[in-house]
């Protein structure tokens, strides 16, 4: 029978499974072995002596030996155990790290181990704070006092219970002998340092969002179709990782240097939105997929230039207009939709886009009651058009090849320690986002003012000229509908 803790959680939120917890518990048990485990020693306090204290260096040595790793890794491993709350420090109890010296630690009792299925309740924390209030005779730490007041406000209906339970737990604890009482106080305090960390520290148990499905529920056996889907997904994931490996600043070097590490902004200035000469890595990313090209503003500029030469800039302009409609403010939606219709979709529009009859019908009828996503079918059609047709030609075009040739590959920075300190001191905040947005809007207005000439305008002009007896230029390859 599975014991499930829902505690009548009708919202049915489940905590995600933390796989490391079960593994850490196994290791904890190995550490308890009297022969092969970690050596313990008694801790001498003023009057009492408490057994089972272990030193940081013993823990690190045991981990290094057990897993055959070097000291540094054993230290991080040990710190993880402390951060999760399996081992707690006896001195300096707020800093949850392993110090590889003679500092003392102790194992936490299984009740206070971190678990996936038992959430840490505010009721328990309130009871703990009330007990601490009794013990410290009303003098709590600042963050504890704040939490106490907050819980008193939000759990007011349970407050009688909390006071009663706190008093009873306090009296029950007094029934034990002095050494055990000291240990219990340390245990409880360590538990709450992990799960309600003091300000300025993070909890090792932060897990993000709750799940909708209970991870402890019985697993469904996979069907063949699911296995195939999983296989395809994993292949694409592998392909993605292989492609982007050299572009990921975590996995490869960031040229010239990673600003977060060296405090030098060159990387960011070289990769700004409207930079003249892009970097080689950036240009390489444009070749990965059409989406990458469009999502990079500099790439989009380059593509726009190419399309201008091909006289099919209206596609990109329409696409951008649709994006603007989707992400823009609701108040301007109607005007924007009308503007787009007049410019791109209406019969005889100045920048008429070529979409098939059915999509045009749906779009025009939708525009009678415009909403944010009314242009989605048309936008998708144009996007696929550009992707299948123009994108391939762009990659072979002289515009792109020119950009590729001019692209710069910066030298790697080699900062000395003194220079790094200097950089850190010279840190300045970047431009305010308000200013950046204003610049963007100005640029957009400028572009709208010098809208490139499209084929329809050219054709209409030339047809007028043709009436005067001039030759028409050869018709451009029209996109297939």
């Amino acid at each position, binding site marked *: 029978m599975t*014991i499930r*803790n829902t*505690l*009548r959680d009708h919202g049915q939120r489940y905590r995600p499974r933390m796989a490391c917890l079960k593994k850490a518990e196994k290791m*904890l*048990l190995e550490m*308890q*072995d*009297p022969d092969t*485990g970690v050596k*313990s020693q008694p*801790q001498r306090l003023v009057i009492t002596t*408490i*057994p*089972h*204290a272990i030193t940081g260096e013993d823990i690190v040595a045991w981990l290094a030996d057990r897993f055959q790793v070097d000291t540094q890794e054993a230290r991080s491993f040990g710190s993880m155990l402390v951060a999760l709350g399996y081992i707690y420090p006896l001195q300096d109890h707020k800093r949850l790290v392993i110090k590889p010296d003679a500092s003392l630690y*102790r*194992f*936490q*009792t*299984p*009740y*206070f181990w971190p678990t996936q299925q*038992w959430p840490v*309740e505010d*009721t328990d924390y309130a009871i703990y704070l*009330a*007990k601490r*209030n*009794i013990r410290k*005779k*009303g003098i709590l730490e600042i963050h504890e006092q704040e939490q*106490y*007041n907050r819980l*008193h406000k939000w759990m*007011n*209906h*349970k*407050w*009688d*219970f909390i*006071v*009663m*339970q*706190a*008093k*009873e*737990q*306090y*009296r*029950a*604890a007094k*029934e*034990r*002998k002095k*050494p*055990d009482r000291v*240990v*219990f106080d340390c*245990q409880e305090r360590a538990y709450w340092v992990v799960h309600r960390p003091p300000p300025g520290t993070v909890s090792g148990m932060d897990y993000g969002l709750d799940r909708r499905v209970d991870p402890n529920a019985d697993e469904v056996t996979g069907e063949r179709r699911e296995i195939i889907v999983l296989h395809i997904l994993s292949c694409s994931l592998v392909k993605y990782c292989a492609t982007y490996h050299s572009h990921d600043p975590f996995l490869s070097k960031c040229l010239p240097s990673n600003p977060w590490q060296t405090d030098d902004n060159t990387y960011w200035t070289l990769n700004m939105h409207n930079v003249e000469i892009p970097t080689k890595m950036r240009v390489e990313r444009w070749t990965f997929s059409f989406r990458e090209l469009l999502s990079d503003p500099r790439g989009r500029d380059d593509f726009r230039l190419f399309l201008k030469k091909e006289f099919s800039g209206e596609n990109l302009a329409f696409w951008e207009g649709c994006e603007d409609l989707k992400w823009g403010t609701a108040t301007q939606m109607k005007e924007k939709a009308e503007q787009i219709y007049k410019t791109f979709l209406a019969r005889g529009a100045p920048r008429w886009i070529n979409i098939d009859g059915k999509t045009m019908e749906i779009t025009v009828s939708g525009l009678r009651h415009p909403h944010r996503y009314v242009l989605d079918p048309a936008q998708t059609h144009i996007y696929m058009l550009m992707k299948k047709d123009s994108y391939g030609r762009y990659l072979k075009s002289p515009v792109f090849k020119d950009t590729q040739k001019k692209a710069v590959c910066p030298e790697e920075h080699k900062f000395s320690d003194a220079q790094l300190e200097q950089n850190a001191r010279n840190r300045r905040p970047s431009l305010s986002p308000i200013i950046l947005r204003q610049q963007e809007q100005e640029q957009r207005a400028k572009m709208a003012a010098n809208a490139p000439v499209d084929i329809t305008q050219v054709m209409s002009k030339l047809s007028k000229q043709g009436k005067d007896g001039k030759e028409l230029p050869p018709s451009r390859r029209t996109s297939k509908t």
Partner: protein
Amino acid sequence: KPLSALACAQEGAWIERNFLWPEECKTMLDALNKVTACYRHLVIALGSTSDSQNLREELKKTRKKAQELAVANRTKLTSLLKDKTISKEDRAEYERLWVLFSSSMDLLEVDMKRSLEIGQDFPLKVPTRHLIQTGMTGSTTTVAARAMSVQNMKYEADSNIDTADLRDLQSEITQVSQMMEEMEMKVQVAPWAVEAKQEAGAELKSNMKEDAGFASICAVVGFFVIITVAVVLGYLVVNMS
């Protein structure tokens, strides 16, 4: 004559309902609260070096006592709350008692489930399975005695209690969960609407009185000891000279 007897019986029942039962409920809730607190202390010792056969038996006995109190409490409280004829203040008070009761039961239920889990993970008789060296080595018999309201605990269980008891525990957990769900169905109480009687920092008041009382007793005793010593010394001095 039979009519007046009936009236007497009804009045008696009314008095019992409106005066005796709330008081009984409060007493039983205090007792349940105490047992819940002690049970939590016992569960905290599970799996550590203070775990033992005795602890498992203490857990079993405490648990059973808690369940008896719970059932008794539930019956009285449910019938009190189902009564539509009570006044608004009375109803508010009963709802407050209800919140006390259900909070206690929530805590108890979680602790029972955890004790099942930890009890299963740490069987006592398996030599390769080690208990966690937490630094706690003393026994918990005084805590259990406090829960059971006795002077000394008597231990009479078999040596395989650590495994045998787990089955009982599982069924008891189901019983408690079922009881809680039934209670929520039967009684319409909005727990968040209850106003607590205690203010922030209420836990400090009576405890300080207790400590102050203790301190004053110590002072008085010390005083008498000093007087006695002074008298004895004076007598010796007089005798010497």
